[in-house]
């Protein structure tokens, strides 16, 4: 039986690149793509190499935490298992401390941390019978000081911490948990955060997706529980 791979944030950026990359993996038989934008999901699906794989698109706003248990149960009922969960959805609206609204802090943490945690909790209920892998996308912003990015950076630090703890807590259940912290990546989010930057000169989402695919392969058995920094060698400010 092939693997079922669930990807959040699949309508753009690293999530889209991961969906395209994972669609080339021979042992993946089904991909479930989740994002707010139905149009974005359609664009991702159009770029994938399906090769007989099932692809389900689920437009869903992850700020609706209460709906996540139903969402995950539906996926499990439809596909029978969840073997790979890629938590890539992210939100950033960097503001200095005194300019940051409570709403901004709550939205950032809800998408970057709370939704991820609830998704993992619900998925873990269903993936207890076979080995599985979960990968959470953090950021280099979560492991260094980022004045002006308080909510985003600290939420990504939470992702790093959460991943390390879950890697140990779920290890005995046969579930491996990874976190990666990409540096500057040429995504739509990056365009918003640094509009003056030449995106062709920094890391591309497909490069991050290659790392994700390597980590999710059966051959990888030792890097769970560690925060893996993904940077281009030539990069200095990522």
């Amino acid at each position, binding site marked *: 039986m092939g693997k079922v791979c669930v990807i959040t944030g699949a309508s753009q950026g690293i999530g889209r690149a991961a969906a395209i990359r994972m669609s080339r993996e021979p042992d993946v038989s089904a991909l479930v793509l989740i994002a707010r934008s139905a149009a974005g999901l359609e664009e991702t699906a159009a770029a994938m190499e399906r090769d007989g794989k099932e692809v389900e698109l689920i437009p869903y706003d992850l700020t609706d935490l209460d709906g996540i248990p139903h969402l995950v149960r539906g996926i499990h009922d439809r596909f029978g298992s969840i073997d790979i969960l890629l938590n890539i959805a992210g939100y950033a609206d960097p503001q200095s401390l005194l300019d940051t609204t409570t709403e901004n802090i709550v939205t950032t943490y809800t998408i970057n941390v709370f939704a991820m945690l609830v998704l993992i909790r619900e998925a873990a209920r269903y993936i207890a019978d076979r080995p599985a892998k979960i990968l959470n996308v953090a950021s280099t912003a979560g492991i260094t000081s980022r004045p002006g990015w308080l909510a985003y950076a600290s939420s990504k630090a939470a992702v790093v911490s959460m991943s390390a703890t879950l890697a*140990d807590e779920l290890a005995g259940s046969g579930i491996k948990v990874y976190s990666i912290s990409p540096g500057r990546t040429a995504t739509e989010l990056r365009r918003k955060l640094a509009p003056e930057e030449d995106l062709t000169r920094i890391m591309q989402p497909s490069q991050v997706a290659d790392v994700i695919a390597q980590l999710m392969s059966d051959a990888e058995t030792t890097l769970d529980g560690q925060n893996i920094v993904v940077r281009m060698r030539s990069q200095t400010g990522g």
Partner: protein
Amino acid sequence: MKIGMIVLAGGIGKRIGRPFPKQFLLLGGKPLIVHVLEKARVIADIDRVVITCPAAHLDETRRLLANHGFDARFSCILGGGSRQESTYLGLADLADCDSVIIHEAVRPLVTVEEFRELIAAEDPNVMFGIPIPFTVLKGHDYVEDLLDRDELVNVQLPQKFDRAKLAAAHDAARRDDAFFTEDASLFYRYAGERVRILPGSERNIKITVPTDIVTAEAIYADVIGRGG
């Protein structure tokens, strides 16, 4: 051959010094009893698992089963006033089974391989045992007699028995008001049949006193590859 399993979860936490039963203590972030049930879950040969609980913790244990995604193979029943009584009730609940495995919630470091070894053993009645590495004497205030530790065995769970024969042995023990601390002793005395001893593991410790959880954490860290 239909195989059932009894998980004894009747602790009330007195000796471990906590205000809640020790089967709910966390090891590696998970309740001890969940460690045990997860091992049973991956063994398809086990048809049903019955957990015996005190009345005060039935709901909590059921909630744990639901939260951790255990299916209908797993159920909770009300335990008895003693360990022996709980086993007796578990045996009655598993009346449709030919063979029964008995384990306890506070031995979380049992392995799937140990359960499989027990199931695969040709003898119908089997226990794990390990040598006693220290000297044991008989006595209370004064030494009353010597014991040869080479003739003794430290009894471990899990154990496996012919369900009907163990149930009959329990009936006989109840008639005599005889109480035992585990089932190999009871079976040996009242069924009159051989109980095979398989070599157990020093790692399969029972969480009884507070320092046991410290030891268990160290063993578990090694089990999941976080030992350094």
